[in-house]
């Protein structure tokens, strides 16, 4: 025997890792997987923006969480570094799929199926960059897989506008090729055309392209309906309202419930809903998330199996996206539609429709939509902090606000490893 001839038993050679339909599918699942790891939406990116925006308070032990709660983030903050690393790891996974799948010669892998795989990957790339641009603003845009180490890896930041352009270009490609649905409830775990449309609408909202936002939101709504009972969204998985929902199971867990719940319920009590969030709900609001007795049913509660799905986008949000866009577009007809949309959300939550005064005022409706987004989407995808920043409310709603706090610092290690990168202002 030749003792020098040893081969890895749990890895594949990267040159041949994506070479047929099965391995392409596995690499695509790998690209989804990065999104639901603990440093991405599996825990941190779902909770940290809400901690930063004040929907959550920090009650635990991690100094890195404390920095984010205080919005005094150091450039070596582990959460910031880890999030950057996993998001770009995800980008590389996606880029590998997009680059390699079209070159696969496996005859059982049809051109159509290749297109589907590439379209899903393209959607994911858009979503990775959307996350990056919201957290850091302008970032390096990488669209090719990394195979060798060279100085070419030192890519400078592109302006946020270019990142948004890349996101929109990818979403357009995805919208053109993605199917409307996949078979089975767990099909909601994958990118569909409505998911891409909904994401496109959301991106337009951030770019204040109101007409686009309204139009894409409307297109994304088709085929989905609000679940009558709000808590069903989380107690039942993959409801009729859900458009894209990361799928978790007992062998593929996340720590959301563990981080949120008290020690008495087996959690680690790292963060908990803030008084500010709890008191924002009226007593009859079905969506209420309370600080006291918050354990029983918040959005993530399956502590023993740790398999709470993570809803990435759902009709409730799309309706509010459309309402906001229409309200900003202005005009009586748009305003009236916006009021109708908001009332759908309010009614489902057990609230009365908006008052006539509010309904008649674009500015009051603006506040109402902002509030409903907070109440509706608390602890989902970090919307509240991004909304505070995007709508310019951070300065008035957050104590000791400094505009530089709108973005996280580029991780120190990244600045060190890449001289072409410039640190964000204020860090």
């Amino acid at each position, binding site marked *: 025997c030749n003792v020098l001839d040893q081969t890895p038993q749990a*890895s594949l050679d990267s040159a041949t890792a994506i070479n047929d339909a099965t391995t392409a599918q596995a690499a695509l699942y*790998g690209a989804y997987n990065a999104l639901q790891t603990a440093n991405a939406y599996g825990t941190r990116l779902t909770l940290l923006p809400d901690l930063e925006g004040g929907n959550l308070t920090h009650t635990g032990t991690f100094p890195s969480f404390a920095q984010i709660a205080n919005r005094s983030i150091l450039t070596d903050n582990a959460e910031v570094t880890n999030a950057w690393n996993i998001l770009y*790891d995800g980008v590389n996974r996606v880029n590998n799929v997009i680059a390699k799948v079209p070159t696969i010669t496996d005859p059982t892998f049809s051109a159509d199926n290749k297109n589907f795989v590439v379209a899903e990957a393209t959607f994911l790339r858009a979503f990775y960059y959307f996350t990056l641009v919201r957290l850091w603003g302008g970032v390096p845009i990488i669209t090719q897989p990394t195979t060798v180490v060279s100085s070419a890896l*030192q890519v400078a930041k592109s302006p946020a506008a270019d990142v948004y352009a890349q996101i929109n270009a990818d979403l357009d490609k995805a919208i053109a090729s993605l199917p409307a649905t996949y078979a089975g409830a767990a099909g909601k775990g994958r990118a569909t055309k409505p998911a891409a449309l909904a994401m496109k609408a959301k991106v337009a909202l951030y770019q204040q392209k109101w007409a686009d936002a309204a139009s894409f939101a409307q297109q994304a709504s088709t085929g989905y309906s609000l679940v009558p009972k709000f808590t069903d969204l989380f107690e039942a998985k993959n409801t009729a309202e859900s458009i894209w929902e990361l799928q978790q199971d007992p062998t593929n867990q996340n720590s959301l419930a563990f981080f949120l719940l008290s020690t008495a319920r087996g959690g680690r009590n790292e963060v908990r809903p803030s008084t500010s969030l709890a008191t924002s709900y009226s007593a009859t609001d079905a969506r209420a998330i309370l600080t006291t007795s918050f354990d029983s049913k918040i959005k993530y509660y399956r502590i023993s*199996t740790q398999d709470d799905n993570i809803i990435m986008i759902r009709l409730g949000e799309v309706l509010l996206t459309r309402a906001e866009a229409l309200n900003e577009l202005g005009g009586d007809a748009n305003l009236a539609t916006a009021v109708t949309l908001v009332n759908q959300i309010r009614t489902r939550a057990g609230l009365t429709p908006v008052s006539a005064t509010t309904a008649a005022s674009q500015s009051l409706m603006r506040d109402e939509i902002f509030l409903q987004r907070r109440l509706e989407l608390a602890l989902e995808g970090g919307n509240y902090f991004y909304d505070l920043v995007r709508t310019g409310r951070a300065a008035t709603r957050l104590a000791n606000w400094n505009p530089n706090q709108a973005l996280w610092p580029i991780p120190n290690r990244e600045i060190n*490893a890449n001289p072409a990168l410039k640190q964000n202002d204020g860090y």
Partner: protein
Amino acid sequence: SVTSSDDGSPLPGVSVQVKGTTRGTSTDATGKYQITVPADGRLVFSFIGYVIQDVAVNNRTTVNAILQADATNLNEVIVTGYGTQLKREVTGSISTVNAKQISDLPITSVEQALQGRAAGVQVTQSSGTPGGGIAVRIRGASSISAGNEPLYVVDGIPINTGSYSGIGVGNSQQNALSNLNPSDIESFEILKDAAAAAIYGSRAANGVVLITTKAGKAGATQIDLNATYGQQNTWKRFTPLTGPQFDGLLNEMVTNRYPKNAAGNIVAFGTSWPTYGDLTAAIFGDGDDANKFRDASQFNDPSTVTTSTNWYDQIFRQAPISQIDLSVRGGNERTKFYVSAGRFDQQGIILGSGFNRLSTRVNVDQTVNKSLTVGAKLSLSRSVSNRIQNDNNIYGVLSTAVLLAPDVAVRNADGSFARDPVSSVENPLAAATLPQLTGVELRTLGSAYLDWKIPFVPGLSLRSTASLDLLNFREDQFNPSTALIGRGANGSGIARSAQDLNWLAENYLTYRKTALSGNLSINALAGASWQQSTFESVLAQATNFPGNSITRLSAASVKSDASSSGTSWGFQSYFARLGFDYKNRYQLQLSVRDDASSRFGANNRYGLFPSVSAGWRIVEEPFMKNQRVLTNLNIRGGYGLTGNANIGNFSSLGLYGVSDQFGNNVRYLQSPGTAPTQIANPDLKWEKTAQSNIGIDFGFLSRFNFTAEYYYKYTTDLLLNRPIPSSSGFTNFVQNSASMENKGFEFSLSSQNFNKGGFRWTTDANIAFNRNKVLSLADGVPPFAAGFASWVAAGEAIGSFRGYVTDGIFQSTDQIAAANAAAVAKFGTGAVYQSALTSPGDIRFKDINGDGRITSDDQQILGSAQPKFFGGVTNSFSYAGIDLSVFYQFVSGGYIYNNTKAFSEGMNSIFGQTDGVLNRWTPTNTNTNVPRAVYADPNNNRRTSNRFLEDGSYGRIKNVVLGYTLPKSVLQRLKVRSIRAYVQGQNLLTFTKYSGLDPEVNTFSGSSTALGTDFLTFPQARTVTFGLNLGF
């Protein structure tokens, strides 16, 4: 017959020669011999370790000789790689530790035997965890990321070491060496320089520890029984705050964080609070108003708090330690054997921890005929570790004892464990008693050899060996739902089994010849070796148990993980050595090894590791013949290359894995996924160390032996995880790039101070000075952080600490305003020196770069964990059957980063605090270096700074052994060969300024770069044992 002057016992195997002839014989098992000799002839008796004796026959028919033990040790045989050498022939740097030096000590793992006893060998137990990890550094650290532990070779087998556990319980590691029974070991030889170690090639850069187990001895069969029993306890504990002190502190923290506004109201969280007690209760009382865990009244008047739990008293205990060993040793000229069985049992001084080991060994040598000898060595051992959660871990036993507040009771009224609902940490007693984690390690070390003196070529012999190191590690974890760690999962468990099969086949020829009328002796060695190690593991994990009685996974309803994995490596090596000795004065030795390994990249498959060394034994020169002062004077020097092949099994390949580069399993939609994990580097190879060594050995008056050595180690091609922009999708790239140096002096002395009238006093001492420096990292690789405060940078030692520097405490708002005004002048409105919330009592950090504000650039190197010098001194006394030995061990000049203190005196949250915080800054206690108490620590007083860096120097009376051996007269009546009783004390006294629990500490057990860091780490015990040796 021939007997020893030591104890009058017969000496078998002594060479008896008729002077001036080639005629000779050797003594039998009872020391007797027969030889034909002229009546006026002379007989020469020689035996290793004894002074040669030349006796005139003078017509006698019986010539008895009493051989004197040779105090100069020059004829001592020491084990070297692939053979043995007389000590005086050694030109490299080798330290020896003998069985005798450690036989009475409570040693769990064999590395502990080396601590303080071999110059230049630094042994640091990372913690007091029984069977836990131990760091051994021979002449400093020579690697950043490929490991700094030496190669351990047991009876010729390079064995697998390290931790085989796959279940994380904190930082404390398992130690595979702890399943060797120290009682079976005859000697340790530590090959320190390249001349000695290069024969082990690409694995020798960190030095080599050769462990030789006891072999059989011809002569009367000796049965030895050694039994010890003792108790261990802490030698130091923290003093926690009392309940009233703690609640007072919490109230003060909140008061300082939310000062009353201009109107005199307490406003926080958008609400106005009637008293600070109400606000404090809102933060620390748990949210349920009806049933507050801590209420406003207890904060407003802390003296009403009645619970004051000292958690340390709950988890520390006096713990027994015992060992019993039985060995039988004997044989005749043809067959020699050593068999032993031993049991070691240690409970840890922290509740829940423990380690025990059962071991057996059989070593047999059989002379088949004049030219053929065969033999086998086989040991079987089983060690069981009861492990506890530890260190950086909210479920750790000591961790929670430090971190849980004193106003929490041990148990609730209903008998269940009490917890603090505001805190995430477990009840320490629950942490110690509820979860179960047992690791069972089975190890078989076996080898068989044959030695064939090739008849056609005198002096040439062949040795073939086949060896096996088979290690099975099985661990079972069960976290019941009654413990916080298992509560969420409703009970969780892991069962894991790992197996490592390491086989070795070696063949080598040795050749000895004398030439030039006996003036030149030549020895040569050439051989080949093949070794392969295959690791496999299986893991299953499950949650949701029906109760807490069935702990096996079959009971659990959710199987959350099942996986198996494997990896392997192989080496194919050729080696040779050639030695010349001319007139016992001039010595030259050359050695070389050629290693090929599966680990090396395709472009660098083979590595060559040569060495050359020479010695000049001045004392043998004719001009020294007439002096009587120097019994030894020897100068030697050498140079050679060694490598470190511990670079990962498949690091050179570009890979896609089923778990990603961060260790996450890649799965989605209940389907397998893959992710890129590393970029290929076909150039990857071993790390290369070039080492020069120069040594001088003195012997004076047969009483003092002194050795001084200087070395310089220059390591290049250090493996570095070069950070690359992670926007590439990879965080780093493994590359041979960095360089590092170690240089130092080592001195060792052994002295017979006094030997008269039956009173004997000897001293053995050693001290080593090592200076380590990272010379360069790769191009474009910036300095990087490790651990909590450690820093790797060119120009600094490995184990350096970096952080902020404190500059006193802000005493007034004026001082803060002045600092902030300067920042505003430079950076504009809103700029502050440190933090917008800095207040009097907060620490002022030094503006190192002078830019007027504190940023991450204001950090600097604060010191290094590496000591300036270290060593040990043993004084041994004996008189009339009484023996006393006192071993003092010291380490001086290294720092410890006390991260425990950053929490236990951090005053930022609900964590339990120690009495150091009683000296905190208040308007009336301003002359202090402890900052004010303030909730959430907005000034970040706890940041990594020299506030928590402490001098880690220590000296300790490591062992004192006092024994009494019964006199021969009594023994003869009892028909017993020997009886000795002794009492031993370990860590009896420790002299240190370090404020933590123990200065011998590293929470990053097994780390190369994060050294000397204390974080909730299991401390060393003070141990007193009683022992009895019986010989039959």
